[in-house]
């Protein structure tokens, strides 16, 4: 491989990776990533699940809670509610902010006050949360969406609280994950034998091939095993929780990966510069 030439593409090809989108819906995207290595495809999967930032409720101050659920139980439920994070880039991480606890630059405040005064059950949902920033509202799927149920009240029950939503990543807590699942498959016919099927009698009958198998040539059962073959076609389907658009989850995932790499590269340069000034550190 020529070091100055195109460095990417698996199996020595210089064409480089490519993407084909198969389907794009409101809350999911499915695409095929080709001509790249398993490690790179897996990095994209991991980064979409755990390192794409979103906004989620992180602190709850409860003023009144006479409902059947305990304070911490309600606080936990509030944390899981997806909040529209389309403009997440406008919010800072609190750790990067100049304020001491939280402010409008690094948080969104949502309040909730519901009291049941009638003789029938009243439901408290994510629609009862009132945001102080119209860009960051609890996700509503469509006009028929009644919101996410938080708690049910009987006559006399009251819930009054203030929530502080912050920017974060799912590496810290899963509530910040923009996705509810990422389907990841390669080699649907198991030609590479990366999977060992547990079987009763016949693997072909007990393990039907996935839908992605339609997109690949059926292997010849008499063909010898190619132990040099490497996966280079990845079928990925991302389903969001609604806080970000599926296409944005993928591009923000790649951006997060690029930012990490850039940061490490910069740190390496700094480490090298400080070492050249001061020879007391590590040595070759």
């Amino acid at each position, binding site marked *: 491989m020529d070091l100055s030439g195109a*460095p990417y593409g698996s199996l020595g090809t210089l064409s*480089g*990776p490519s993407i084909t989108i198969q389907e794009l819906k409101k809350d999911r995207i499915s695409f095929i990533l080709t001509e790249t290595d398993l490690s790179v495809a897996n990095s994209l999967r991991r980064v979409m699940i755990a390192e794409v930032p979103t906004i989620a409720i992180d602190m709850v101050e409860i003023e009144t809670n006479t409902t059947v659920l305990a304070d911490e139980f309600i606080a936990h439920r509030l944390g899981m509610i997806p909040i529209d994070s389309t403009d997440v880039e406008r919010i800072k991480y609190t750790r990067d902010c100049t304020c001491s606890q939280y402010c409008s630059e690094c948080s969104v405040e949502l309040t909730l006050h519901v009291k049941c005064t009638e003789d029938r059950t009243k439901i408290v949902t994510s629609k009862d949360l009132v945001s102080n920033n119209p860009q960051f509202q609890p996700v509503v799927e469509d006009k028929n969406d009644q919101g996410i149920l938080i708690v049910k009240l009987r006559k006399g029950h009251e819930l009054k609280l203030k929530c502080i939503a912050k920017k974060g990543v799912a590496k810290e807590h899963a509530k910040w994950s923009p996705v509810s699942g990422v389907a990841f498959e390669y080699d649907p016919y198991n030609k590479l034998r990366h999977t060992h099927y547990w079987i009763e009698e016949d693997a072909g009958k007990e393990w039907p091939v996935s839908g992605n198998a339609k997109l690949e040539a059926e292997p010849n059962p008499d063909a010898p095993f190619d132990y040099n073959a490497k996966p280079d076609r990845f079928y990925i389907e991302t389903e969001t929780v609604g806080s970000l658009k599926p296409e944005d989850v993928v591009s923000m995932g790649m951006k997060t990966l690029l930012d990490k790499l850039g940061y490490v590269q910069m740190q390496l340069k700094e480490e090298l510069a400080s070492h050249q000034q001061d020879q007391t550190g590590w040595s070759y």
Partner: protein
Amino acid sequence: MTFSLKDEDHTLGNALRYMIMKNPEVDYCGYSIPHPSEAKMNIRVQTTDRTSAIEVMDKGLQDLIDLCTVVVDAFKAEVSNGDFEYDEDAVWP
């Protein structure tokens, strides 16, 4: 030479290991996470004497950046191209 990367994991480790290993001047590259509850990733590089581990690491990072840039551009081109099944208002399932 072993590089110790704070707050990094398999996401960066495995892809970077692959990219560095592609460099023909590299004899060995491997990574490990010594303990699951310590947010730290070690990556070891051994090169031929025509280059140095630091140079190879820098090149590995740059190559991976270039690769990711190609993926981002390919993805954005594909989204704006719009040649796929698209249904904005469809509700899951």
